[in-house]
């Protein structure tokens, strides 16, 4: 996104929330945030919970976005906005949250004008499920594919590029006069099943060299690891006692002499000092607010306690055994290289259409 695209995006975003524009200038834009937007991008959750708890009138936040910082004088206070800006990423997230599910009807101008005043509700609209998904191919690197799929819910079939097709139509959130909607012949679950099958087919058609190569790398690395720890075990066994005495350096750790490593023993006991008390991770503050809970209670319940001084024991330090080390390293390698594919939904909707998308 270049600066122009960023600006257009932001303007459309604010327009979608009917935002009051305070000032618009070729190089910057000042807006007064509506409540919904403020909660998403204003970065003041505590303010909001306070205002809502105390039932106070809220002070809208005014933001100025600067698109050409080099052309704006120092008298204009605002934040520079560009593709990587934190605020724009928040706006993206906000758009994603508020643009998830839609239900739209096609309003076909030609058909409407052709109908006389006495026309009956006799024109059918076909129901479609539109689903936009992101397929992420992941190993130690990553690539995304976006698919814009559609399923005809009346005569089941799957089409690609459904969203680009929709963009060419006139869509409204209400049903046009003199139209009726055809009944769905398959359930939502079935339609999703079809889409899943289609997504699988697309995945199969992808060049899978990336995964093959990632597996080869993983395999090679695991092989090195096997060999290394096998040798280590062998050496540990025959380790010279004399060498041990050399190891007393000032900062040296007291390393217990390891017993010979049984290569096949995969299960190792977790050393005691690795057990960490479960620390509650805060769930979202939004949830607390939605549930009407007190913020203070939330904070008390979710704060991560400092370990009291008396419980801190610097003495308990134990080096991992070679087996533990190997196991950890193998997990790291799998984590890094193991190819996998994740399919996530961007958004979706039900569309009642007069026109039919081209079938590929």
């Amino acid at each position, binding site marked *: 996104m270049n600066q122009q695209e960023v600006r257009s995006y932001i303007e459309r975003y604010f327009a979608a929330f009917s935002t009051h524009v305070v000032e618009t200038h070729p190089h910057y834009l000042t807006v007064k945030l509506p409540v919904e937007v403020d909660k998403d991008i204003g970065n003041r959750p505590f303010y909001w919970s306070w205002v809502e708890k105390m039932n106070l009138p809220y002070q809208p936040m005014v933001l100025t976005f600067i698109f050409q910082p080099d052309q704006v004088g120092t008298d204009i206070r605002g934040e520079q906005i560009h593709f990587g800006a934190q605020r724009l990423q928040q706006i993206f997230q906000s758009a994603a949250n508020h643009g998830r599910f839609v239900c739209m009807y096609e309003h076909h101008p030609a058909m409407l004008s052709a109908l006389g005043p006495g026309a009956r509700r006799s024109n059918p609209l076909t129901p479609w499920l539109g689903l936009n998904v992101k397929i992420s191919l992941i190993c*130690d690197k990553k690539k995304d594919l976006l698919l814009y799929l559609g399923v005809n819910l009346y005569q089941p079939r799957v089409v690609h590029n459904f969203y680009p097709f929709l963009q060419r139509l006139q869509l409204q959130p209400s049903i046009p006069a003199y139209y009726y909607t055809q009944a769905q012949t398959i359930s939502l679950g079935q339609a999703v099943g079809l889409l899943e099958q289609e997504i699988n087919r697309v995945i199969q058609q992808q060049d899978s060299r990336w995964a093959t190569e990632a597996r080869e790398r993983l395999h090679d690395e695991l*092989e090195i690891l096997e060999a290394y720890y096998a040798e280590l075990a062998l050496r540990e066994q025959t380790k010279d006692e004399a060498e041990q005495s050399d190891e007393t350096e000032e900062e040296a750790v007291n390393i217990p002499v390891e017993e010979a490593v049984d290569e096949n023993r995969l299960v190792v006991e977790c050393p005691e000092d690795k057990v960490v008390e479960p620390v509650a991770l805060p769930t979202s503050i939004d949830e607390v607010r939605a549930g009407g809970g007190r913020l203070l209670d939330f904070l008390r319940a979710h704060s991560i306690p400092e370990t009291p001084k008396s419980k801190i024991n610097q003495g308990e330090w134990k080096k991992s055994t070679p087996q533990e080390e190997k196991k950890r390293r193998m997990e790291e390698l799998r984590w890094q290289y193991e190819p996998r594919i994740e399919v996530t939904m961007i958004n979706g909707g039900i569309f009642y259409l007069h026109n039919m998308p081209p079938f590929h």
Partner: protein
Amino acid sequence: MRPVEVLLPERFTGLRLAPSAPQLSWSLPATIIRVYVHNFSLVLHTRMRKLGLALFRGCLDQSRLPHSSLSYHAGNRLKIQFSSFLSKILMIISSNVKLYAIYALSMLSFDPSQKGRFVLTNIPVTFDKTWLPSFTELIQQDGPWHKWELFQLAIEAEEAKAVSDFDQLQCLKYMSNLQPFPHQLQTAERVLNEMRGRAILADEVGLGKTIEAGLIMKEYMVRGLAKKILILVPASLVIQWTKELNQKFGIPAVAQKKEYMWRQYDVVVASIDTAKRDPHRRHVLDIEYDMLIIDEAHKLKNKRTRNYQFVKEIKKKYCLLLTATPIQNEMDEVYNLINLLKPGHLGHSSSFASTYVEGKRQAKNNEKLREEIEKVMIRNKRRDGGIHFTPRRVQSVPIELSPEEMALYEGVTSFVREHYRSEMGTFNSLALITLQREVCSSREAAFMTLYNMYQRTPEDSPLRPSILELVEMIKKIETHSKAAKTVELIKQINDKVIIFTEYRATQNYLQKYLSEHNITSVPFRGGFKRSKKDWMTDLFQNRAQVLIATEAGGEGINLQFCNQVINYDMPWNPMRVEQRIGRVHRLGQERDVFIYNLSTSGTIEEHILNLLYEKIDLFEMVIGDLDDIVERLHLSNSLEENLISIIMDSHSSKEMALKLDNMGQAIRTAKAAKTRSSLLPEAVHGP
């Protein structure tokens, strides 16, 4: 080949396998291969219905699969009649109706365009279906639906953020405040594409390792591959790193202060000494870090230290070790550092030693070792092409001392010599050496030392009068030729200037002297706290004309907005001279760098400058070179100690000049040898 008869589950009857099931063969790499079958999916295209598709999915774990592991011996050409392989799979299908994808090593994926038409994808696929219930509910209640405009904006955002390519850097479009240099981009790309996110970044000082690390970090974040990131740095650099990541990269890094922060924040900068101590250690070791970055990693060269052990135990996916010190001194250090990153990459330490190490500092099998090291380490050097440095302009500024000043110099020098040789009973030699150096700098510096000496001698000591005599000489001096010349020089430069001196007394005096001549200046000392250093740098950049610094080091202080350096006095240690230059002559310096060396005629200073400037061309040398050269000299003592003994032990100025000359000659020879062998990698200097 006969058609395969397979017992199919009921609902698949009618499907028949193609009679000409393909035969597959491929050669295997060495060693034993185990075929793990985790899960698999299978697509069948039958002859009768070309589009007929049967997709089996479900999941099986390894333990429940019969024949889940097969092993083959090395080097054999492996042939599997596909039909029999398939029949095995189909038998499994018939007994376990739910089945999914096959994981059977990399080789088991076949080109779908080939006649065989068997495609075994073996990559696990996860479908996110968490959205389905809420969508279903919306449909049932017919709303409330979202706006079409926002629906479109959501897609556009995803389109803008989607990673369209495996290899191309994506992070640049996210950063508006940063223009990386070509070598930094190349480094980032190599780490991502060749080293797979585990690397040692060992650029020479001033080439921007932090930028490279930031680029790599940002790239993984943008791709959604790294979220939880830990950056371990020396305590003095925590704030600087945090600031830089936020400002330059837009990475929301926080400096770790409280225990809860380990878990609360995704990108945490902390000092390794804090992190390794409880209660912090258990948090750090419990978290799985997508990425770990360690600055000044050469401090981890000893594998027996707690720091080393601690870093080794941190669970990490990607890992960057940053070091500026060429890890060439000890072969062991190379080994240990690489073993942190990729254990076993260089084999076991003793097999490493027998394969690569001849002596403590000598490598064998250079070529092979270099290859191995280059797989995990990147070292950009200043002399490599593509990194542009502005020229340096060096100028000696000779200063004639006034007769009183010369008398003081002579007086102090003979005083020092006399007592230094007389078996150092009365004074410690260090004080005498210091005095000798200081008298070249300023009378203030010498005065402080003389005063301290006087205090320490017993009241009836015969030395007291001779010290007092020197002090009297100082009092008589009214001119200060060096300071006067400096003022003249600054006025002539008429731009920002950094003055380096070795002594605090000189620094204080100069500050007073400059202000008397209406020149604004700020002091800079090693003892300042980090925040004060930053503040002084800031004052210098925005308010003052002159920065008077007593120390050149100070990790991470960048003064490249200034291009004028005055060496008010010459350190006896050439390394320090190099460090001084390195403060301003670094990446980002856009102008030529001017270096003025003040040299008082007829003093030791003149000799030293002569050695550094004319004999060894220090000022023309690339930063970092001197280090290598000194390394080659194989001196038993440091270069500085050698210089001290030459200066202090010489009986005449002629003798000193001769010895210094020899020293210069030796350095020049080493330098020439270095240039010849510069094809060898940094880390493995051969004999």
